[in-house]
């Protein structure tokens, strides 16, 4: 709770900075502020409390994921300094929006009431719509913002409809009360229907196939930093929220009562396989790196959906997977931001010869791609390992084999980028070593490797 208040306060401070004309200090100030929030959040870890008539509930799950979100936001804010160099007058807006977005994210994982959940999702989404369209003179960015807004509002509408049906079935928005009444044998059919609608809405947000069509265009059109935010932070926020919804509202046992569990699991398996396969196969053909990472994100959403099959025990695995994926994503995007600065596109040709001109950043990008592809010793490998282990233990060996085949396919496009960096001749020389970009890239890939060497640090957090 304190975390949420502190984040909102920090966002308002950012706006005030604009008025006080402290623009230069805004990035360091916000980073320090977020570090403070992180410490605050750390102290809340392990306590369980609920506030304001159970509007917000703090649990291990919410604090652990909030910490991850805060860390990612710190990285994203740090990258802002260089990215908005030419938009100095608006930097406080951009930073403030990111901080508010974080507030929405934290609300989404710590809701105790569906109203709060919806508020959270809207705060996050509206911030994202604005950021997607923030390069207002660029027609692609406008298109991305518009597309995202239309699709996102659709999804929000469907979610809202689902919430209404649940209210109709249960007579309450309160998660605990819904949980308790869902234990009774006689459930109105509205409850599962409402849940399915909410799940569909969330599938839009995480861009799972077949609700993924917006993702590639929006990722490509948005400013690169916004894409970074969408593919790392926004994706895992939606994933964690969906996880919390399905487990918190007691969906699985109530479906079991209605004999619908098998159907639900089939749907998850199908969507997971479809996301992995479509995402990977489409990614193979992309020349634009942002688009490629959009499709790779779709396939990772498919992987993360596998945790829903073992929902009682897989919170730790989801947290680990999300952390590994997001840290690799941040490292990759910080290199992309550096390479594609002052370029009008993010095509692979921009990366030619990076291994010669800038070996450090090339190595970092290689590392993050290897992590996403699931090569040891990066944490992406362990994320997949734990995920596969969980899934095989619950008997879905065919799903795991499909996932393995997909991991092989994914190597194809991750390595396309690596090949471009190491086996092509450089086409231009970049000068300047922006400190913050280097720092973010190095710190995030280091964290990724540390997670790989000591997976228990994160994995056992939620057990």
């Amino acid at each position: 709770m304190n975390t949420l208040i502190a984040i909102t306060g920090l966002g308002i401070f950012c706006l005030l900075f604009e008025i006080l004309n402290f623009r230069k200090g805004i990035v360091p100030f916000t980073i320090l502020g977020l570090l403070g929030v992180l410490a605050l959040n750390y102290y809340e870890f392990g306590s369980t409390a609920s506030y304001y008539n159970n509007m917000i509930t703090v649990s291990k799950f919410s604090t652990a994921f909030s910490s991850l979100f805060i860390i990612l936001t710190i990285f994203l804010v740090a990258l802002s300094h260089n990215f908005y160099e030419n938009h100095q007058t608006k930097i406080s807006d951009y930073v403030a929006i990111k901080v508010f977005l974080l507030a929405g994210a934290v609300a989404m994982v710590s809701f105790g009431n569906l109203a709060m959940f919806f508020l959270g999702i809207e705060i996050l989404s509206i911030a994202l719509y604005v950021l997607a369209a923030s390069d207002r003179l660029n027609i692609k960015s406008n298109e991305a913002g518009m597309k995202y807004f239309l699709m996102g509002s659709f999804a929000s509408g469907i979610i809202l409809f689902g919430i209404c049906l649940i209210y109709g079935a249960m007579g309450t928005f309160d998660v605990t009360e819904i949980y308790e009444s869902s234990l009774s044998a006689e459930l109105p059919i509205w409850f599962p229907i409402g849940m399915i609608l909410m799940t569909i809405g969330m599938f839009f947000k995480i861009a799972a196939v077949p609700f993924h069509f917006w993702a590639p265009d929006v990722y490509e059109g948005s400013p690169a930093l916004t894409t970074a935010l969408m593919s790392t932070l926004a994706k895992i926020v939606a994933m964690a929220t969906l996880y919390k919804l399905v487990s918190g509202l007691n969906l699985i046992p109530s479906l079991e009562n209605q004999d619908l569990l098998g159907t639900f699991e089939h749907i998850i398996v199908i969507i997971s396989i479809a996301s992995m396969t479509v995402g990977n196969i489409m990614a193979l053909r992309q020349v634009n790196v942002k688009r490629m990472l959009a499709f790779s994100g779709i396939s990772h959403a498919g992987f993360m959906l596998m945790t829903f099959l073992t929902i009682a025990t897989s919170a730790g695995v989801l947290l680990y997977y999300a952390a590994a994926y997001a840290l690799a994503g941040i490292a990759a995007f910080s290199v992309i931001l550096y390479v594609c600065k002052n370029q009008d596109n993010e095509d692979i040709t921009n990366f030619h010869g990076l291994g010669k001109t800038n070996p450090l950043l090339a190595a970092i990008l290689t590392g993050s791609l290897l992590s996403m592809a699931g090569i040891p010793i990066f944490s992406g490998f362990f994320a997949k390992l734990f995920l596969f282990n969980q899934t095989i233990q619950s008997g879905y060996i065919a799903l795991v084999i499909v996932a393995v085949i997909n991991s092989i396919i994914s190597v194809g496009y991750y390595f396309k980028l690596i090949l471009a960096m190491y086996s092509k001749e450089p086409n231009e020389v970049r000068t300047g070593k922006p400190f913050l970009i280097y720092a973010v890239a190095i710190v995030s890939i280091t964290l990724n490797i540390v997670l790989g060497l000591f997976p228990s640090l994160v994995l056992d957090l939620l057990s």
Partner: protein
Amino acid sequence: MNVSLILIILLVGAFVTYFAGDKLASKVALFFSLAALGCSVVLLNHFNAGENISLVNAWINQPKISFALNADGLAIAMLLLTTALTPIIIFSSFGNEYKNAKGFYALILFMAFAMTGTFLAADGLLYYIFWELALIPIYFIALIWGNGDAEERRKAVVKFFIYTLAGSLFMLTAFIYLYTKAHSFLIEDLYKLNLSADEQLWIFLAFFLAYAIKIPIIPFHTWQANVYQKAPTVGTMLLSGIMLKMGLYSVIRWQLPIAPLAAKEYMNIFIALGIAGVIYGSIVALRQKDLKKLLAYSSLAHVGLIAAGTYTLTVDGFRGAVLQMIAHGFVVVGLFYTAEIIYRRFETREIAALGGIRTQSPKFTSMFLILVLASVALPTTFNFVGEFTVLYSLSQINIWFAVLGGTTIILGAYYMLKMFQNVMLGETNSKTFADVSVNEGISMVAIIAVLIFFGFYPKPITDLITPSLETILNVINKN
């Protein structure tokens, strides 16, 4: 004192090499690889004195993964192979200039680190991690420092990477499945499992895919010749000298004892595949125009025989296979080195463009001849001991296997001597060929000394490996 010391030396060595800078990199790398060699000799003494040099540490709680290194005779033999070949390989590259040498030598040491780890690991997952880690450095070595047309090289290397990764991911799935049964990745727990015949078959096949691609056994060999040709010679040496032994070693260590029923049931098929590799490799080698490609196919033939030996499930087959792994490791490194020496002087590997070297460089000719004869398993060379033991074990299974496998010696002698004739003998070549330099000579002599010494006296190695091979065989035959 335990075996993790070698891993630490090699890993630290890789980092130090990288930070030493381009000028010093090769010397620093040589120093660390020699240190690792010295250290493994010391460990061998400790092991022979009966000391326990294995190591088990908890690493990840859930799922339970331990950092377990097991040093029995077999693992130590492979460890010695790796640490002895690494300095030779590094030293052999001293005549070449590499761009960004610090990265190159750091990757070599890192690869040695990963391969050593693969040989020592006694926890399925740790083993898998090392197995995969070894793939990354060789990928970059072949991609960045390789030769030939860049586009073709890229294709060959990517194919290699995706092939091997695909195989090993199925192995990973098999390991996870085993974990759900045993609740542990430790090798001794996996040995104790009682799996049904069906389960064993699937696990056997998943392992086979990983190993057949790495070794390579036909029909999974298509990546090999191109990568051997395109990689820099150092990379080819690492691949053929050590890395493919990872696959053969893993067959003995992991595949056969974990799925013994399947191994016994389908033994003949896999022996036949190995022998098919012998014949196929030999015939294709006959027609090669590129020296490195010829050596690649001859290597395919030899490892086919080794693989057939492992699948016989007899102690002779195992022993012969391990002896031949070591012998082949040395001889193939030596042969690729001769190809490199020729390339340094003539800048070609086309067999047709060579010839007439003998008259200009008698020392080089005699060294090359010894290597060629060793490779065709002339008696008194180490390779003879290995191949003969394997053939003997094959004859115990079925005499026809031995007869067909024996063609490796006949066909091998034919294409190797023909190659030698075309490359070294004949009319005087118009280009001058300087005889081997001191640096080149040291590597060559070291290799030849090993081959001849153990050819006369293989007992130290047989004594070292036999007890652990018998232990493994007992696990296979327990039910």
